């Protein structure tokens, strides 16, 4: 399974902003809405527990959104 964790929309994301500024400096144009988050890969016996894992530890729900993706789904 994969858990994608992103800064919540509207929250200051200085890492995203820094990347967004750096890309045009390298000649890549037309880049916007860059956000930098985290990817957690894990194998879990009971995927039904994943939302609770995200709420309690993997993400901080106050400042981050998370998305749970099964790897089969991601490969499809």
């Amino acid at each position: 399974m994969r858990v994608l964790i992103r800064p919540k929309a509207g929250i200051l994301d200085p890492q995203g902003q820094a990347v967004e500024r750096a890309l045009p400096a390298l000649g890549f144009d037309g880049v916007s809405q860059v956000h930098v988050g985290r990817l957690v890969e894990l194998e879990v016996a009971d995927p039904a527990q994943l939302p609770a894992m995200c709420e309690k530890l993997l993400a901080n729900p106050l400042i981050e959104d998370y998305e749970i993706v099964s790897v089969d789904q991601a490969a499809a």
Partner: protein
Amino acid sequence: MKFGVLRFPGTCDEVDAQLACERVAGAEILWHRDRDLKGVDAIVVPGGFSYGDYLRVGAIARFSPLMESVIDFARQGGPVLGICNGFQILCEAGLLPGALLPNRTLRFVCRQVDLTVERADTVFTNACQPGETLSIPAKHTTGCWYAPRELHERVEANGQVLLRYAPGQNFNGSLADVAGVVNEAGNVMGLMPHPEHAVDPLTGSVDGLKLFASIRDHLSARV
């Protein structure tokens, strides 16, 4: 009275915190794998990089055996002061409102900052005057205090902001210049600057001592 100062793997400011506490009372270091708070009267969660800041700052320390005891201690009304990484841990533990985001500049900053005392009638600030300016060093990369609008409004309405960065001093981008907040019950405080590094004239300021003295005076007044 006795302070307990927590030590996690990666903590680095516990000795300064212990020395600061010892200027006003007794102090003892508590190890993260123990559950016993050894009868201390107040807790300091010091700065550093507990558990290597893995995952998110403060996220792992929250689940240590010692923190479980500290959370119980706090829920029973015991005074808990979190400094820098300690502030981050207490936010992650749900004992304090909000969260700490990376500094607006993404840079590690180490500098002396002026803080304005918003309230001087609390466990942590009773040795200060309202409106007084404290000069205390700050040193961190992840110190931009943030709370969603509704939570921030509640924090302000409850008077939970005890310290703000003075005008022009908010180098990390904290919402509403918040430098230090207290929980609703008033017994848990967190701040990003380091009062334990401002306790000796040798380093330019003794303003940090006021926070430790406030806790001591609060506890001795209660006896």
